Structures are given as C-alpha cells and as structure tokens.
C-alpha cells in the first residue's frame, strides 16, 4: 500500500511562483501603467499608435529612469539623495561646455566625463553621510544648494544651444533602433545591470542588510561605510549619465536643467515599492514608477484633465504607496507573530 503524502493546495513551486508574481508590488504598478495607456489610447489613438506618440512614450521617462534607479539604490540603504537634480543640471551643462570649448572631442570622452563628475559629486555626499554620521537628508539638502549654485554661477546667463552640440551627439537623443529610441535602450541596459547587481552580487545584497538594520549590519561585520559611499557614488554617476543624455535629448541646456528631479525620483522609487525606511524594494519597481509618473503627465491632457493636476496625482500616489506599505508591513508582522505563537 503506497502512502503518498497529500499535497496541500497552493504549495507547489509553480503555485508559489504565480502567487509571488501576482502579489509583487511591481505587478501592481505595471498593471496601473498598462491601464493608463489603454485608457489614454482609447481616448486618442495617437497616444500610442503614432510614431511620435510611441517614441515620446518610451523616450521621455528614460532620463528619469536612470535617476530613479540611482535613488532607489540609495533609499534601499535607508538614506536619501536630494542632490541628484542639481547633479543632472551640472553635468548637462558640463557636457555642453565640453563640446563648445573642446571641439572635436570624441563622444565617449564626454560620456565618461559626465559619469565621473557625477560620481565624484556623489562621493562627497557618501563620505559626509558615512563618516560624519549625519542624516543623508541634511547633507544632500546642503549639497543640492551647493551644486545648483555652482551650476548657475558657472552658466551665468549663458546657455548651451542645440546648435552648439555636434549632430552625432544630438542624433543619440532622437535616434532609434527598430523603432525603439536609443536612449531608452541605454536606460534599460543600465536598469538590467543594476537589478542583476542588487540581486546576485554579495555587495548588492549587503545594501539591503544595511537598510534593514544598520546596527546589526555593522555588528555582523559588513563594511557599512564602504557600501554607503558606493551607493551614493552610483546615484551620482547615474545622475551624471542622465545629465549627458539630457543634453542629447533636449539640446538646449539652461542653468535650471534637472530642477525638481530629485522629488520625482524619490516619488518614482516610493511608488515602485522601495520603502523609505530602507531594506525593501527593487530597481524594477523604481523604473516602472518613473514610467508611471511621466506617462500620467502625458495622459492627463488626453483625458481632458489639466496637466496642472499632475503634481497632485503624484503626491496622492506617494501617500497611497507608503500607506499601503505600512498596512502590508503591519499585516505581515501580525502574521509572523501569530505563526510564532502557534508554534508552527
């Protein structure tokens, strides 16, 4: 007589995978994004089904995506980086100036310069946060002022005009491969790299540990300072890359480029499931959050709502996201406590 153990429903690996995907935060916002696109397209087919519409849909959020990914990495370590907007502006203007002052400079050099400068600016933030033990909010508040001030002082009333940039560089901003904008492909490649790093490399997983409980991470022997500095350098470097791409996309760079991007990036990350208290969330969520935010911006006028209400929608979404996080966290802790009590 065979005694096969009865299978409890819902515990097979396939079922677990399905339930994991279905309840993942990222699935929720992908659904919201698809919903918005569908509703907007029903209202006005050119939203999606025109070459301009499709291109703009993919292209415009790709800059914010880079900044949001960097911000997500910093938020996961239980910090925040308010200076990314200023870094984007500074590197965008630097890009323009490099092309104007050093004619014939290869594109690669400009890209590297932007990323390196962004990384250095991020390093300043990271070092101050790690070694001075001051909350990142305050440090990056100060550096946000400082970097923006340097940007405006350097630019003065000049600006970089589209005609100052070489055509090959600007083509990057508008070029397409198989109908998908180059900038989007670049951003997605960076996204995949970041996601892989956070999930598969030890140093990436350590960021989650530091965010969940910095004291425990320190006692466990993790090199907390080094990881935090690394997170800020990454955020700065990604913002630097976004700045270079900003110049490619918009052509004209005034001294207020990137203004306000830090709050958009934080909003995108929070909506995408990255908890502001650290230790939770993925860069996929932040990326989808960035797309969601900017697609709402474009969809509102189509739906007849003045796009002045976009900021209110973003604020409501952020609040909704953090309340949802809290509700889920409370439920999770109650479930764990119950399991512990019943000795399972």
């Amino acid at each position, binding site marked *: 007589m065979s005694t096969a153990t009865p299978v409890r429903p819902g515990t097979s690996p396939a079922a677990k995978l399905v339930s994991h995907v279905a309840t993942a935060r990222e699935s929720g916002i992908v659904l919201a994004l698809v919903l918005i696109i569908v509703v907007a397209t029903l209202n006005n087919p050119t939203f999606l089904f025109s070459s301009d519409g499709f291109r703009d849909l993919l292209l415009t959020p790709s800059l914010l995506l880079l900044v949001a990914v960097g911000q997500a990495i910093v938020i996961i370590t239980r910090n925040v980086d308010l200076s990314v907007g200023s870094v984007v502006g500074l590197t965008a203007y630097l890009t323009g100036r490099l092309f104007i002052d050093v004619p014939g400079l290869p594109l690669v050099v400009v890209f590297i310069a932007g990323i390196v400068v962004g990384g250095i600016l991020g390093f300043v933030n990271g070092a101050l946060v790690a070694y001075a033990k001051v909350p990142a909010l305050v440090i990056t508040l100060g550096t946000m002022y400082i970097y923006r001030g340097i940007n405006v002082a350097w630019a003065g009333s000049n600006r970089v005009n589209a005609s100052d940039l070489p055509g090959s560089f600007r083509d990057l901003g508008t070029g397409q491969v198989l109908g998908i904008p180059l900038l989007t492909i670049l951003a997605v490649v960076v996204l995949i790299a970041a996601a892989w790093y956070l999930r598969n490399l030890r140093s990436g997983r350590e960021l989650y540990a530091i965010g969940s409980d910095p004291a425990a991470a320190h006692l466990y022997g993790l090199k907390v300072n080094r990881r935090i500095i690394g997170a800020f350098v990454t955020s700065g470097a990604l913002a630097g890359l976004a700045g270079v791409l900003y110049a490619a996309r*918009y052509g004209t760079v005034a001294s207020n480029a990137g203004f306000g991007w830090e709050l958009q990036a934080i909003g995108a990350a929070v909506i995408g499931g990255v908890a502001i208290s650290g230790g939770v969330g993925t860069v996929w969520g932040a990326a989808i959050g960035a797309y969601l935010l900017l697609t709402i911006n474009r969809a509102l006028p189509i739906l007849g709502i003045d796009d002045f209400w976009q900021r209110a929608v973003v604020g409501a979404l952020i609040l909704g996201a953090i309340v949802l996080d809290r509700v889920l966290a409370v439920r999770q802790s109650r479930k764990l406590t119950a399991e512990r009590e019943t000795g399972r």
Partner: protein
Amino acid sequence: MFAFTRKTRVGTAAAALALAVTLVATGCSGGSAGGSAGGDGGGGNLAITFLPKNLGNPYFETSNKGGEEAITEFGGTFEQVGPSEATPTSQVQYIQTAAQQGVGGLVISANDPSAICDALDEARSAGVKVVTFDSDTDAKCRDLFINQATAEGIAKAQVDLISEQIGDSGQVAILSAAANATNQNTWIELMKKDLTANHPNIELVDVVYGDDDDQTSFDRTAALLQTYPNLKGIVSPTTVGIAAAGRYLSTSAFKGKVALTGLGTPNQLREYVQDGTITSFALWNPADLGYLSAYATKALIDGTITGKEGDSFEAGKLGTFTVGADATVLLGDPFVFTKENIGDFDF
C-alpha cells in the same frame, strides 16, 4: 549634549573668520559685478540697471547688449540683473536691491502688469526712474514705456503669417510664455479679435503656456501635437517658445505638415528655416529696443523729458523720438524674416 562649549566656539569662530574673509573680499570687489553707482541722487546719476523677465534668454541678452552700448556711449554705468525664472515675485527682490543701491534708472520688462507695482512705486519714491520696455506694467507705476511696435501691428503680423502659411483655414494653437506676461497677453487678445473678425475659417483651439522655459515649451509642443491631431499651425509670440517648438517639430513626423510661426530671433531659428520647419517669422531688433530704452532713461534722469506726451529726446544713432500717449515711446514696426533675408542678421 548640553556640554558643547569651548570647542564649539573654536570651530565656529574659524567658520566665522572664513565667512568674514569671504565677505570682505566680495565687498571690496563688489565693483567687478558690473558697475557701481557713481554719485548719489541728483540729475547726474547715470547708473542704470537692466532687469529683464529672466536671465538666460537670448532675446534679453541682445537687448541688454544694446542697452550697454548706449550707456557706454553716454558715459553711464550699466548693470544687468534678473531672476532665472520668469515670475513677478522673483523680480521684486531685484527692484528692491536697485532701490537700496540708489541707482539712477531701472529698465524692466515686467512679468506681470500689477504684481510688481508696489515695489516699483517704492523704488520711485527712493529716487529711481522706472522705465518699462518690451512688457509693460500699469501706467501709474512707471515713468515711461518703450514699446517695440504697436500691439495691433505685432498681433496682425503674426495672424497674417499663420493664415498665409495654412491657407487661411484650419485649427491653430498658441504657445505663449508665462500666463501673466503683459505683452503676450495683450497680443493674444488682439490676435483673437483679428481671427474672429477677419479669418472666420481659422479655429483657435488652445493657448498653452511654456513659461519662457525651454523644456516646458518643448514638452507643451509635444502635448499640443498629440492632443490635436488636426492641428495645422502653431503661433508662438515668444522667442523661447518658438525655438523650443521648432526643435521639437523638426524631429517629429509633423515637420512641414504643421506650420510654425511667431516671434523669434534669427540666430536661434536659422537652422529651422533652412530645413523647412519654419517658413517665416517676425520680430524687431531687440538691441535697438535696449539702446532706445537706455537713452530714454538718460533723458528722464537728466530732466530732458518728464514722460509727458509730446516730450522729445535724442537717442544716439536711432535719431529723435517723441513720447506718445500714456507715456509710451514707439520703436518702429515688426520685421518679417524669411529664408532669403535671414542670413543678413546676427542676433
């Protein structure tokens, strides 16, 4: 935690020292920022400050240069200040600083017709002559207004251009600057009247505001083209707006299908005229506008004119000008730029 004491003082004293050194350095070199007021009060104070809608705007850079040229000619001192965004609130601080510095004249392009009135009145009671140019305020809070062309003329020029380019029928939209800008709003009202009266087949579907910010104008153009698929023309009575719209249009599927015209500077739009995105547009010479404004301010300062109708004064290379009604001085007529003549200009 309450025992931060002696060491705090040492640390902050060092910071204070650094701060003091900075201040002394900037205070001593304050003159390098563009000129110090030469002599206080009286009819001889030819320190003139230019305060455009915002800095970083090529149109105002040109008008500032014109003003500087005039001021150098008659031996005054020139200074240019301005906010980075075109809002009235940010202009108030600069007006106040000018009043405190005791400059002879303030030449301003207003972001709002009435919001800065109080600040301007305070400046005038401190002895500063207030001259508006390009964008006016209420007549009671300024001494003189230098108008580039009659508002009717500017509006008519743009309506004529767009109707010519779209065959006098179809949907058009307007991409303006800031929602409260006096000059754009005056022109838009006149354009609407002209369209209703003389072009019944043209439908104005929307007026959107780009805030004289390049990226905002760029994004607004994209939104316009998407929201109104049958749009045939865009009119942009602001140099920042038309440049951003041209940049978007020239890489879009609508290039050549949607007409774009308005007020723009030749240097910014040359590329789009040459690749066919823009057929023709209008403007006047902003440098002449700045030049005339500076001379008018000088005339006010040294008492040659008081702003009364009929007063006349010399404006260097531009000739003699007479003050018209409402203390307004007219520069001339708008000029139309096309592919043929755009190579002759450099501003």
